[in-house]
């Protein structure tokens, strides 16, 4: 081809086809071209894309071919002007220098070089990607999920997961949880097979994140942790700044101080909360409304001194707390709580006044987080527990084993699911179904919209009725368990029917029809009505069907396709619901057979 063109150019001036200046050909370039333009290798490009939040786009016309990835030219130009691009090159050169100096045993130079490391941070990217705080909050789901994942991962040298990564991830996630507890932001909890889903409402945004079950994770071989770590790097920065802002809004110091003792006892969250409680007033003395400058200054004060002081203070308060605990436990629990309890929405304060004790076998971290987010007081079986198991004022003990050896009569022994279900339904469920050794009712997802789904599990209906009963302030909710509730509803149904018939009778009386006559009439009309219904139903359907068919004739082809697709979706959904109902029926039959 090129030969041909050359040949042509000899004989006759040949003009190469003009490069396009507009349209998709000019707007989008393939990934390889982008790499060439930026003069970087693919891993570096991938890293930059992750950090900058640049993603491929779908051009309407794929000029270079259909199986290629396209980036917008503006995106690539944006990358080309990114200071990190140069910074990473500097870093590479710097590392080379260190390696060289070390190889030459020039340790002086190494030391000097180590002190001159090029600065690398992603702060400007956070601001660039999330110009306002709300933007950042909106995108917080994935960051939190990944931070919580890394908080649980083992450090692994071969995958370059360093202990620092895990430590910082853990710290940030705990700070986030502490904030959620402090402002009672948690709304929903769902224990799934995959992990525990939490949903919190912060700044008017619903933020959902997933944490793994507290079992050790096995690192799969087919996962590229470089990608994950790049994401982690950005998310750490993002969540750090978000946490700072949130703490700043509360007038709290950031980063909060962890209680050393409790941290060692692996109750970090509790330790953090202790720190928050003790550190808060110190900062609140300083003017809150000042701008950012003041705050940064404050943060710039010699952090170590502040930290050590605060640590001492927290330790002191902790010791005090332990002392007071021994004297008057009730008082103490109040002391650790935040002051603004009164003006809270009751739905986020359902555990107020309850005192919980966690057994050894329940997931402590999740329960600590949830119970404290809903106003409860918690202790646990282990080191650093605020009050012992023998405390008389404990109302609920959370256990997750078939039997309980020694039982205190003053408290209820419930399974952890009770906490989650109560939280999701915003009122304290009756504990009967959740007691030790019982098989719990199904744990339902709070994220499902029953109406959109078109199907409501039985237990959801039961809970709904209970909720209605509690809102009416009826004392029913004290006793009902599953069966009771069902009978309750049947009773109400009967009541309604009776009432209806009564009004009918009344109206007839007014019309002057005798009771006996009306009875006769009823006997006549009732079957007729039924017949009419059975006749009418099939008759109506084809008519409607015909109308639909005729309407379908008049549709454009596009509309018809859309219509068919929508109908197919509806049919699928209906089939799913049908399947659920069928399974339910079968299960019921089986259960009966077993009985």
């Amino acid at each position, binding site marked *: 081809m090129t030969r041909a063109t050359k040949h042509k150019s000899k004989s006759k001036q040949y003009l190469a086809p003009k490069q396009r200046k507009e349209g998709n050909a000019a707007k989008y370039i393939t990934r390889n071209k982008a790499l060439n333009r930026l003069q970087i290798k693919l891993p570096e490009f991938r890293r930059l*894309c*992750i950090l900058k939040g*640049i*993603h*491929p786009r*779908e051009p309407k016309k794929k000029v270079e071919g259909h199986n290629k990835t396209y980036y917008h030219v503006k*995106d690539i*130009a944006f990358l080309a002007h990114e200071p990190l691009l140069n910074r990473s090159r500097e870093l590479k050169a710097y590392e080379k220098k260190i390696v060289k100096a070390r190889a030459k045993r020039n340790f002086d130079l190494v030391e000097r070089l180590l002190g001159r490391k090029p600065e690398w941070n992603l*702060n400007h990217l956070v601001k*660039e*990607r*999330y110009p*306002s*705080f709300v933007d950042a909050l909106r*995108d917080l*789901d*994935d960051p939190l*999920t990944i931070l919580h*994942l890394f908080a649980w*991962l083992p450090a692994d040298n071969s995958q370059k997961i360093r202990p620092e990564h895990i430590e910082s991830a853990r710290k940030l996630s705990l700070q986030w949880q502490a904030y959620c507890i402090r402002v009672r932001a948690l709304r929903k909890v*769902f*224990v*799934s*097979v995959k992990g525990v889903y939490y949903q919190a409402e912060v700044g008017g945004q619903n933020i*959902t994140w997933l944490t793994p*079950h507290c079992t050790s*994770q*096995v*690192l799969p071989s087919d*996962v590229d942790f470089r*990608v994950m770590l790049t*994401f982690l790097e950005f998310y750490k920065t993002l969540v750090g*700044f978000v946490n700072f802002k949130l703490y700043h809004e509360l007038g709290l110091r950031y980063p909060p101080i962890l209680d050393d003792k409790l941290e060692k006892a692996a109750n970090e969250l509790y330790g953090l909360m202790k720190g928050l409680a003790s550190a808060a007033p110190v900062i609140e003395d300083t003017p809150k409304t000042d*701008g950012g400058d003041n705050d*940064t200054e404050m*943060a*710039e004060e*010699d952090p170590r001194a502040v930290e050590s002081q605060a640590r001492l203070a927290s330790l002191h308060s902790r010791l005090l707390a332990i002392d007071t605990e021994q004297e008057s436990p009730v008082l103490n629990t109040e002391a650790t709580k935040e002051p603004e309890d009164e003006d809270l929405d009751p739905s986020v304060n359902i555990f107020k006044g309850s005192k919980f004790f966690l057994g050894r076998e329940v997931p402590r971290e999740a329960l600590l987080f949830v119970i404290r987010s809903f106003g409860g007081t918690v202790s646990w079986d282990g080191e650093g527990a605020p009050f012992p198991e023998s405390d008389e004022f404990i109302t609920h003990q959370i256990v997750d084993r078939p039997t309980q050896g020694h039982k205190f009569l003053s408290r209820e022994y419930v399974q952890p699911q009770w906490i989650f279900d109560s939280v999701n339904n915003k009122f304290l469920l009756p504990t009967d179904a959740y007691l030790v050794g019982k098989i*719990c009712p*199904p*744990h*339902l*997802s709070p994220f*499902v919209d029953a109406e959109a789904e078109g199907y409501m*599990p039985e237990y959801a209906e039961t809970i709904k009725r209970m909720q209605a009963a509690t809102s009416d302030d009826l004392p029913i909710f004290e006793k009902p368990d599953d069966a009771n509730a069902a009978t309750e509803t049947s009773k109400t149904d009967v009541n309604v029917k009776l009432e209806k018939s009564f009004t009918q009778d009344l109206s007839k009386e007014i019309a002057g029809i005798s009771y006996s006559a009306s009875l006769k009439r009823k006997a006549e009309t009732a079957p007729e009505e039924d017949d009419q219904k059975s006749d009418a139903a099939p008759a109506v359907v084809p008519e409607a069907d*015909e109308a*639909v*068919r*005729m309407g379908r*004739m*008049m549709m454009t*082809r596009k509309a018809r396709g*859309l*219509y068919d697709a*929508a*109908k197919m979706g509806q049919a699928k959904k209906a089939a799913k619901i049908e399947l659920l109902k069928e*399974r*339910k029926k*079968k*299960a019921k039959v089986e259960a009966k057979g077993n009985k």
Partner: protein
Amino acid sequence: MAKLVPKRKLRSQGPPSPIVKENAVPEDEGSIPEVILAADESDSDPEISTDGEESGEDDDGESMDDKEEDGEELGSDDEEDGDSQGSEYSSGDEGDESSGDDEAIDEEARNYVLDVMKDYLGSAGPRDVEEAVEHEDQGNGAGEANGQSGNPTTAEESDSSEDEVPDRNTIGDVPLEWYKNEDHIGYTKDGLKINKQAKRDQLDTFLSRTDDPNEWMKVYDEYNDEEVELTKDEINMIRRLRQGKIPHADVNPYEPYVDWFEYEDKGHPLSSAPEPKRRFIPSKWEAKKVVKLVRAIRKGWIKLDKPKEKSEFYLMWGDDLKTSDKGANGLAYIPAPKPKLPGHEESYNPPIEYIPTAEEIKSYDAMYEEDRPKFIPKSFPSLRQVPAYPNYIKEIFERCLDLYLCPRQKKDRKVFDPEMLIPKLPKPKDLQPYPSMCYMEYRGHGAAVTSMSVDSSGEWLATGSLDGTVRLWDVQSGRCRKAWDFGVKVNHVQWNPNPQINILGVAVDKDVVLLPTELGGEEVTGNVAALLALKNQDVSEKDPESSPLATWSMDSKFKSLKLRQPFVVQSLAWHHKGDYFATVAPDGNTKSVLVHQLTKQMSQNPFRKHHGRVVQVLFHPQRPFLFVATKMHVRVYNLAKQQLSKKLMTGLNEISSMAIHSGGDNLILGSQESKMVWFDMDLSTKPYKAFKNHTKDIRAVAFHKTYPLFASCSDDGTTSVFHGMVYSDLLQNPLLVPLKILTGHETVNHKGVMDCLFHPKQPWLFTSGADSLVRLYCN
């Protein structure tokens, strides 16, 4: 040679070196290789001597040395001694061998001594040279005299030369060869000749060896012409040398080394040059540098204390809540879609109906990989039994991949009710009358009824069927008035539209039969009979060569006129005046469309060529136009001007039927791809509206003559009736509304409704089906 020399006993302990020394002349470096040679040749005494002598000198000059130094020197001395001795000894050795002596040990020892000497001389050479040089530098006396003068001191100082005996011979360092032929070997101190000793013969040697057990320890000294007996110590020394050890047992070779010069403070190399001035005055450049640094420190350019640890995070966002749609790159920000929230089925303890049964789970295996559900709900009796989710990290990783690898696109996904898509149509009730109910069925045909026609009065219906009959029905009563049996399947029937000419055109195989229906009054019948009488019978006779397009003949059976064509006639169409009619024989190629004149009984082929297989032709209801439908297009010919007036681009692939509105401006086409299209020919040559109202091939379409109705029937067994209002106002588009879908016909052999036809006066519809029925639908 050496063997022959008579032996002379050496004095006890005296190592041979001093002996050698006496004769030695100090020499410089060049001598060393010679030394080695000498050792081999065993006549090298003078050369060898150099070392020993010098060492003696050394000792002399450096008497202040440390012990170690001394020791070393001494050691070296000894070594030299060993050498010379060895060389001496070697001669004796050979003698031994020749005599074939007794003790193996002795022999061994001898060999061993010899080897040692050779080795040692080789290795020790260079060092000696150095010392010799040093010696010369000091300039203590020169030349030969040196050697002599050094002697006594050496004898005094070194242990080896302590009990040294001065040489008997005083010839000095001259080659012994010079005395080879003399009787004497030299002179004593007093100048007396020393006579050579008598040479011992082999026997003597042997005897002496056998007699004297110490014979092997003796060495012949050629210089003094005597045999010297080595002491035990000397032998030991040699043995040590041989082992590579220092000859004296009490010398420690690993003493710590103490350097002569103190290099540390002095600097090296030492120089006696005077100190330059610049060392005493302050540096200008340093001062400048200091000034610079001081300034930098003062101005805070250099910070001496370590930079404070900046807190990692700061207040990034103010209180403003403004959000912008555009990102920093100027493109619209498309947030990643949030992951789907979990439903009940993901719960660790889901409701029982969400858990698939064992059979269902088994059935998943049979599914395709893509269809298989990724997550199978499972129930755990308690929270503590929930294990780690094995795909947890993988799923999050996949989410990460989605975040940076998936192209993002903004799509407005509206949640809508699909019923909303159905267009709002006027209610059929408002558009009455239209045929909606089956009023009557006409039974009688034995096979599928392919074609129908109603006479202009609307009282009679003619139907043609595959059973080979044409039947005439009374529309009102449903009675079959008449039946003509052709025996071959009837393709098409069509009434003459002129009520005065009550003729039924029937297309049967290759024939077109014009049947007199014998309906109407006398006048009409007569008229028809006159028309159907064969007029020019002699046409064929007139022009036998030119094959006629069609042959007109009389059919006596039905008293009808028969028109035979070369190809199978599929359909025929009457002109509205009833005189002309056109026939279509699709296989006829250029002769597929023929126009016939009834009154003149003549046929003509108006077209030279067709673009495709002709399906149907129609006359315009008022004007001289002919519509010719081929498979994909419809061509409109102006008959008056004899030219093509329009070509309708149908967009269809297989046109099956065509009908024209009574106004003549609107046309509908049915196609085998189950589509019906409406043409408004005033508007465009492209379809005004296309309907996909059937699921199978459309067989026929029909317009009502007076009512705004049209219909299509299809192989799916249905007939759809539409309202098609055409307004006289040219600006207003026709209003098309589907009214009714009529069912009733059964499909036989994938054939459903074969033909449909409107009643000319009433809003009634006739349909004929493959089930051999004809139905009448009324309003």
